[in-house]
C-alpha cells in the first residue's frame, strides 16, 4: 500500500540529489579516466605499476578510509581544498560537490578498467592506416581510437554511475549526511532505517535504487548494442 503513496518531498530530494551527484561526478571523471586508461593501455613509463595501483586504490580501500583521505586533502583546511577555495572559490566539504567528488573517486577504478580494456582491444593497424592518411597522433585518437572504444567507454560510464549512485561510506565520511545537500539515496535509506516507523520510506527508496540501477544497465546494453552493430563488432 505504501508503494502507491507519492514520494515525500524528502524522498524526492534524495532521489534528485543522488541523480545529480552521480551524473556530474561520473561525467566529470570521464576525461581524467579516459586519459588514465589510455596511458595504462598504451604508454610505458616509469612508475606505471604504482600508478595502476593508485588508480585501483578506491576499489580495495575501505570506503571510509577513502572518505577520510578526501576529508584531509579536500577539506577546507586540506592542502588541495584550501587551494581550490582561495583560487577558484570551489568548496567541496559538506557540499553536494563533495558528494560528487566522492562518487567520482569511488567509481574511477571501474571507469578506467572498462575504458582501458577497449583501448587495448582497438586494432592498432587501423590507427596506422589513419596516420598514413595524414592524421597526427591526436587526430588518430579523436577520429579512430575514441569512436572504436565507444562501447567500452559507455560500459565504464554505466558501471561508474551505478557505483556512484550507491556510494555510501566515502560520502558520509567526507561530506556527512545533510538533508538537501549531501543526503543521497543510500544515506537517506540508512537514515530512515535508524528512525522507528520509517521502514516504508526506506523500502520505497530501496526500490527506487533497484529501478535506477537496472535502468542504467538496460540503457547501456541497448546503446552498446547499437554502437557495436554500427561498428560491425
Amino acid at each position: 500500500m505504501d508503494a502507491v503513496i507519492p514520494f515525500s518531498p524528502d524522498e524526492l530530494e534524495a532521489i534528485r540529489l543522488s541523480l545529480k551527484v552521480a551524473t556530474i561526478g561520473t561525467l566529470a571523471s570521464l576525461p581524467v579516466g579516459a586519459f588514465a586508461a589510455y596511458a595504462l593501455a598504451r604508454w610505458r613509463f616509469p612508475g606505471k605499476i604504482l600508478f595502476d595501483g593508485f588508480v585501483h586504490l578506491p576499489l580495495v580501500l575501505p570506503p571510509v578510509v577513502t572518505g577520510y583521505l578526501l576529508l584531509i586533502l579536500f577539506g577546507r583546511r586540506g592542502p588541495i581544498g584550501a587551494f581550490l577555495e582561495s583560487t577558484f572559490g570551489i568548496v567541496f566539504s559538506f557540499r553536494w560537490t563533495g558528494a560528487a567528488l566522492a562518487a567520482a573517486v569511488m567509481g574511477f577504478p571501474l571507469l578506467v578498467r572498462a575504458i582501458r580494456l577497449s583501448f587495448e582491444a582497438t586494432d592498432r593497424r587501423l590507427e596506422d592506416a589513419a596516420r598514413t592518411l595524414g592524421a597526427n597522433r591526436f587526430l588518430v585518437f579523436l577520429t579512430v581510437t575514441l569512436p572504436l572504444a565507444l562501447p567500452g567507454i559507455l560500459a565504464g560510464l554505466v558501471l561508474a554511475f551505478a557505483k556512484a549512485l550507491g556510494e555510501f561510506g566515502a560520502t558520509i565520511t567526507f561530506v556527512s549526511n545533510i538533508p538537501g545537500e549531501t543526503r543521497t539515496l543510500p544515506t537517506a535509506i540508512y537514515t530512515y532505517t535508524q528512525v522507528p516507523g520509517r521502514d516504508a520510506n526506506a523500502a520505497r527508496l530501496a526500490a527506487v535504487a533497484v529501478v535506477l540501477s537496472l535502468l542504467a544497465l538496460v540503457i547501456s546494453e541497448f546503446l552498446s548494442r547499437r554502437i557495436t552493430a554500427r561498428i560491425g563488432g
Partner: protein
Amino acid sequence: MAVQKTLGDFALDVRFRSTAAVTALFGPSGAGKTSIVNAIAGLLTPERGHIAIGDAVLFDSKKRISVSAHRRRVRVVFQESRLFPHLNVRQNLVYGRWIAGHSAGEKLDEVAKLLGLEALFSRRPRALSGGERQRVAIGRALLADPTALLLDEPLASLDAARKQEIIPYLERLVATARIPILYVSHAREEIERLAGTVVMLDGGRVKAVEEVKR
C-alpha cells in the same frame, strides 16, 4: 632507397633504386616486403639507411631525418584494406581530405568513377565484398593527395575471380596516376601486367632487379 633493420632474429638489408612508374617488390612471404612498405610509410623506423622518393628525403639516418608518417603523403593500400569500420564508404574515401581540411570536391567523383564506387557510398565496410573493400582502400589512398602509392599485396586476400575483377581497375590506375607506385606481390602474373621494374627479394635481401619487357 637503402634500409637496414633488425627485427628480432630477422635482418632486413635492402638497397634499390627505380625510375619506373610502377616498381614491384616480389618475393615469398617472409622476404621483408611488408617491412619495406612500413619503412617507406613511416610506420617502422630503420636503424640505418636512406629513403627518398624523387627529391623528397623521408628518412636519412646520417642526417638524422625521419619525417613522421602523417607528413609523408605516402599513401598505403594494405593487404587487409583496413577501412574504418565506424565510417561509411564515402567517409572512408574522404578521410584523408577531411583530416587535411580539404573538401571532397570533384576529385571524389573522379576517383569514384575510376574505381566504380558511386553505388557503395552509403554502405559500411562490413557490408562490402573483399574486392569492393580493396577498391575503396585504393580510392581512399588516392583521394588523400598522395605523392606516392604503396600497394601491399592488395589482391592477396581475394579469390581468383575477385582478382580478375580488380586487375582492370589497377591497370587503369597505373595508366592514369602520375605518381610513383610501389606494388608488393608474390604473384608473378600481377607483376607482369602492372610493373616496369621488379625488385626480387628473399630473406630480407635483394636478389635481383629486373626490367619487365612488354
